[in-house]
């Protein structure tokens, strides 16, 4: 089973040379730490920067330079700043190659819910609805089950949707899955996790074809 860093490490392998990538808040933010340094990648933060760099050294924080999670960041050589309208223009216009975000629920048809629990938690969708409605390549980083042990990979989402039929791939603490028109296709198992355990943790339709390899993290 993977921890949060393990999930980020596996997702980092999906980041290819020449990609512009938008990272959501939470586990997706950690992905930047594991991307190979021999490829050219630029991270976009929807509040208005391409070429986002690591956190600043202590004492070098700039209140005018933050990411979408409101954390202080730096700008790498070749970075650019732009306003929110242009930022979402590059997202809607499909100029961003890969979107990585978290989810509370994903359905077997690719629906995603991650912004609201009616009556309990309403933080808002931020840029997530624009991202999932526009991007062609959407990877979800998530825990396979909630704290009570219930599956978060469902037949149908129970929470208000963020987007419909949009998720292409899921990397959870248990597995890598591709969302196909027939359901969740199991691609890889997390180290030490069996197909049966993944099946038991998946409420939606799981497609298992042939031998399922264990993830290679390095």
């Amino acid at each position, binding site marked *: 089973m993977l921890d949060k860093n393990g999930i980020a490490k596996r997702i980092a392998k999906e980041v290819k040379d020449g990609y512009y990538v938008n990272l959501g808040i939470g586990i997706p933010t950690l992905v930047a730490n594991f991307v190979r340094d021999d490829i050219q990648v630029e991270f976009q*933060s*929807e*509040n*208005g*920067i391409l070429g986002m760099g*690591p*956190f*600043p*050294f*202590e004492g*070098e*924080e*700039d*209140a*005018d*330079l*933050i*990411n*979408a*999670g*409101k*954390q*202080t*960041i730096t*700008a790498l050589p070749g970075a650019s*700043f*732009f*306003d*929110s*309208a242009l*930022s*979402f223009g590059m*997202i*809607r216009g499909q100029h961003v190659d890969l979107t990585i975000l978290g989810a509370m629920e994903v359905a077997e048809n690719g*629906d995603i819910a991650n*912004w*609201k629990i009616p*009556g309990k938690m*309403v*933080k*808002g*969708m*931020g*840029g*997530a*609805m*624009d991202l999932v*409605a*526009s991007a062609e390549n959407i990877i979800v980083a998530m825990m396979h089950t909630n704290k009570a042990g219930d599956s978060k990979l469902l037949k149908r989402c129970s929470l*208000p*949707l*963020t*987007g*419909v*039929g949009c998720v292409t791939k899921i990397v959870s603490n248990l597995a890598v899955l591709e969302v196909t028109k027939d359901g969740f296709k199991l691609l890889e198992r997390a180290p030490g996790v069996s197909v049966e355990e993944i099946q038991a943790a998946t409420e939606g339709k799981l497609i298992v074809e042939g031998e399922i390899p264990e993830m290679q993290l390095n």
Partner: protein
Amino acid sequence: MIIKTVDNVQDAVKGVKDGMTFMLGGFGLCGIPENAISELVRLNLKNLTCISNNAGVDDFGLGQLLHKKQIDKMVSSYVGENAIFEKQMLSGELDVELIPQGTLAARCQAAQQGFPAIYTPAGYGTEVAQGKETREFDGKMYVLEEAFKADFAFVKAWKGDKAGNLIFKGTARNFNPAMCGSAKITVAEVEELVEPGELDPNHIHIPGIFVQRIFQGKDYEKRIEQRTVRTK
């Protein structure tokens, strides 16, 4: 050249009234019009509608207006940082319209640029699209979203000249440019106000035509929400 300067924040907000709709720039606490917000708090205006990506934190930014119950309705995309907000919203005291962040920017820009509405894929098939017109283009579904209508837009820039030309810094730019010229009156506050001619016209982000009033802001706190650092 047309001079847009006013002497202070009191003159800059002249004409604001109870029940008005305001646009306020900023992302989190980054690039918010601190001086204008303080003055709106001081004037104790009531029944306001505020269009702003976030709602500040409990004791800073728009959180100050919420704390004094000056806001009836918020139009935002993300409000997770503000406990007062969440409480007022869940109790029904505060009317909240949560909309996708890109839609928020597009509805500002539509107002600025004379589009009555725009089509966006964001929110299609979700509760955000309920009751709205949808349409298919090239096999994909879009939602019709209308331009905002607001009485005042309050924006913050890094530098500006007396003709109202603005330059923004870093990610403090965010929603500020799209809100310029999107309301009946746009009020810009700047960290550094200079004479016309001192800013290179090649470097202007927003031309002064979109700004009705500009003033030299003061006492900027520029609070950081999440101070994240690495060690050397």
